[in-house]
């Protein structure tokens, strides 16, 4: 495999002494994040490598030596944020961009009623799902993650090297903000009902927070007993709302829209709809500057009253 060859070459050249990538998961066909110090042949990179690895670098770069990190385009934006915010020691990372043509959501395959999966084989735009009960084919496009269907773009940022970028494929089919717009068009009662039904599912497992490249605080305000905001679990409806309102505000202007929060949520809460609401507003009100929207201003920014003035059902 091209990736394994490149990894071996880079390690032998001394560019890195270990590798952070994906290995085969427990199910045999899935993958999970893994650190490799040897046996680079077991590094896996395929359409099931959905996980964003950049957040692991906070701890990984506290160690000695240099780590070779595999990054999909969306992951590279996360690493860029962590670097900008001094959360990783970038000089201890060799960032190797890997091509991406969208990642597969196994749950979407299950949702099609396919049971007893043993293996998933890719064949161009078709997937062959091997099950205990025989083989089935599924169009690849049907089972991509939501985050891939509204992908921000397949260009890597800030990598030391990008491997075969020509193999990346644009997987965007949705308007990135379509989900936000659809909600905005509803009346407040319907929006409230929607979010209540979603956020009430939250079990406060903190997976969204732990995976998020923007949620990189040494100590989260919700875990800090002296913050006045600590709550390890949601005691009531309000706290379910509060946690997600504050979390989305804290990442507002910094979120890279990698979609990991929604991907990892065991309750399938569409958390990206919160982050994208901020992104949409920022684009509309402040344009796409490089600086995080809340850390800068212009003297003629919109007044908060724009929220009232644009009326109901705005989009």
């Amino acid at each position, binding site marked *: 495999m091209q990736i394994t060859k490149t990894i071996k070459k880079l390690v032998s050249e001394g560019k890195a002494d270990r590798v952070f990538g994906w290995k085969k998961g427990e199910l045999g066909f899935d993958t999970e994040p893994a650190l490799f110090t040897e046996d680079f042949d077991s590094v896996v990179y395929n359409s099931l490598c959905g996980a964003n690895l950049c957040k692991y670098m906070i701890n990984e770069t*506290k160690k000695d030596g240099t780590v070779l990190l595999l990054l999909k385009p969306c992951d590279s934006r996360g690493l860029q944020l962590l670097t*900008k*915010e*001094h*959360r990783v020691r970038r000089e201890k990372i060799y960032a190797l961009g890997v091509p991406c043509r969208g990642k597969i959501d196994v749950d979407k395959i299950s949702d099609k009623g396919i049971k007893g999966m043993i293996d998933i084989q890719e064949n161009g735009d078709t997937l062959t799902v091997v099950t205990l009960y025989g083989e089935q084919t599924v169009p690849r496009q049907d089972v991509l993650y939501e985050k891939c269907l509204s992908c921000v773009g397949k260009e890597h940022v800030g990598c030391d090297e990008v491997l075969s970028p020509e193999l990346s494929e644009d997987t965007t089919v949705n308007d990135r903000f379509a989900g936000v717009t659809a909600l905005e068009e509803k009346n407040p009662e319907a929006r409230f009902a929607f979010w209540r039904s979603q956020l009430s599912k939250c079990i406060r497992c903190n997976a969204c927070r732990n995976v998020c490249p923007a*949620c*990189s*605080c*040494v*100590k*989260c*305000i919700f875990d*800090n007993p*002296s*913050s*006045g*905001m600590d709550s390890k679990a949601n005691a009531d409806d309000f706290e379910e709302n509060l946690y997600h309102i504050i979390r989305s505000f*804290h*990442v507002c202007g910094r979120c890279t829209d990698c979609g990991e929060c929604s991907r990892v949520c065991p309750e399938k809460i569409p958390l990206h709809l919160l982050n994208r609401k901020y992104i949409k507003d920022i684009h509309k009100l402040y344009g796409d500057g490089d*600086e*995080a929207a*809340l*850390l*800068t201003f212009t003297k003629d920014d919109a007044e908060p009253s724009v929220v009232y003035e644009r009326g109901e059902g705005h989009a």
Partner: protein
Amino acid sequence: MQRIGVFVCHCGSNIAAAVDVKQVAETLKNEPNVVFAADYPYMCSENGQQLIRNAIKENQLTGVVVCSCSPRMHEATFRKTAEESGLNPYMVEIANIREQCSWIHKDRMTATAKAVVLGRAAIAKVRLNAPLTAGESPVVKRALVIGGGIAGIQTALDIAEAGYPVDIVEKKPTIGGKMAQLDKTFPTLDCAACILTPKMVEAAQHENITLYTYSEIEEVKGYVGNFRVKIRKKARYVHEDLCSGCGVCTQKCPSRKGGNEFNLSLDKRGAIYIPFAQAIPNVPVIDTEQCLKFKTGKCGLCQMNCAAKAIDFSQQDEIVEQEYGAIVAATGFNPISLDKFGEFGYQTYPDVVTSLEFERILNAAGPTKGHLERPSDGKPPKTLVFVQCVGSRDTSGRGKEYCSKICCMYTAKHAMLVREKYPDTEVYVFYIDVRTPGKNFDEFYRRAVEQYGVHYIKGMVGKVYDDGAGHLMVRASDLLANEQLTISADMVILAAATEPDKTARSLATMLTASMDTNDFFTEAHPKLRPVESPTAGVFLSGFCQGPKDIPETVSQAGAAAVKVIGLLSKNKLKSNPCVARSDSLVCSGCSNCEKVCPFGAITYTEAEVNDGTGKEIRRIAVVNEAVCHGCGACTVACPSGAMDLKGFSSNQIFAEVDAICR
């Protein structure tokens, strides 16, 4: 465990008339940690304060809540009261039950209930107060004055006389500013040079004053008491320490094409020149745009003729770094460009001049040696038309909306001087209003009209044009007679509006001092703190704060000096202790706080941190308490809550919210 005392003030009947103060005290006595509650007719009176002092001692109070007027009124008073009894002054909170309650709510029950809630919020807050100590920072006993006009010179002289070293930075090759270009000064008609040049000499010779002429401010860092400034000394190509000021070089220079700035380009000067005879320092400067040596590499006549060997074509700009305790902006003004006022023909006709140019024409050291001669052909003009408010009080967008203030008086002066020396002239003045408030000002104006027969006409000039036979024609309206006039004039003098010097804005940015939309520096308070900028340690002198004549400028310059002297006389400055602090155990070092800090008070350091999970070197934010003003912008930019504000901590505000919403 906090022991809190609650003191409810009647404020005579101001509070007691609408609020049942006894009930408020009774109710608040039941709040957690409250061990003492009392009411008194005037808590701020000596007896009231004594009551607080006694209660603190007798009940070993650790916190005090005063339910009274606005904290903006008496917070400082009660903090001092607490301090006198040995309690930390920052253990005092005020519940504003006058402005926010008794004065606006007529219903006694409603007002009393609200007073209780406001008291509860203050108690909830004070329970979480921590003793705070004001930080101290040393004061560098040296002042910087930016601008060497009469404002800067006067400020510097006053500071220097008080015994403090002071540096003047002037961008032109000489100090003196606009006043040096003036002929006579109103309302006494004494000559500007006669009263200014001795001051210039005094400034140059004063042991406490250092002059940096032909120099500009490059960078300002630091804060009140501790500014660090970089000054760029531009290359003069003449060594100041060697030059004797003999002026031979200026006579030998073969280049004669440079416009003489001092005479507003009404005549020419050499490429190496001394701006005017009494310039300080009396050292020439080379204009490299005009100098043949710089343009062609050939010449060097000045260098050959310099006996002192002071001329050095290889001289470079020099950066001087100096520390100051206080900075005074005295950047002055300029007349506006008249490009947008084509109707007056300033660009077209040489005999249409500005008032400042006219000053030079009248001046004995000016381009005409003081003889009244018009620029086009050198003939003495017989009819002169003065036009006031050219761009002042202008709402068309071409000029300035404000009144330039000095024009009415100097125009009266010009008219008078002309009529005095040349009685055969006719002098007209067109005005919107004649504004002459000031000591002996109106008398002065009336002399121009009554004694000197100057024709004052209320109305604006619409157009200045050539009648085809080489005569300037002035078309104007006479509003009082309600008629159109056309006057054949030999000279037209325009009182151009004034504006702050263009360098003021970039300087304001460096000083983090604020400006209004006209680029005048903003004062800390328009009435009560007129010579201080809102930025601590930055003071304002002269025209840069707003239009001023010479007497006003000199008084304000003195006032600014007094403020500087007051600052420099302190050995240490106490700073506001309600500043941000970063919790090193929680800080992630993300730099978001630094980006929103308006004062550059936050820096980062690599520090060893042990949060219980082991030692680690982390990047963490550090607040410079002397620089932090305590706005709290950083506290919201910080997602982890590591950044908090002393005196207004998140937990204190949560407690207030909880108490109010209880």
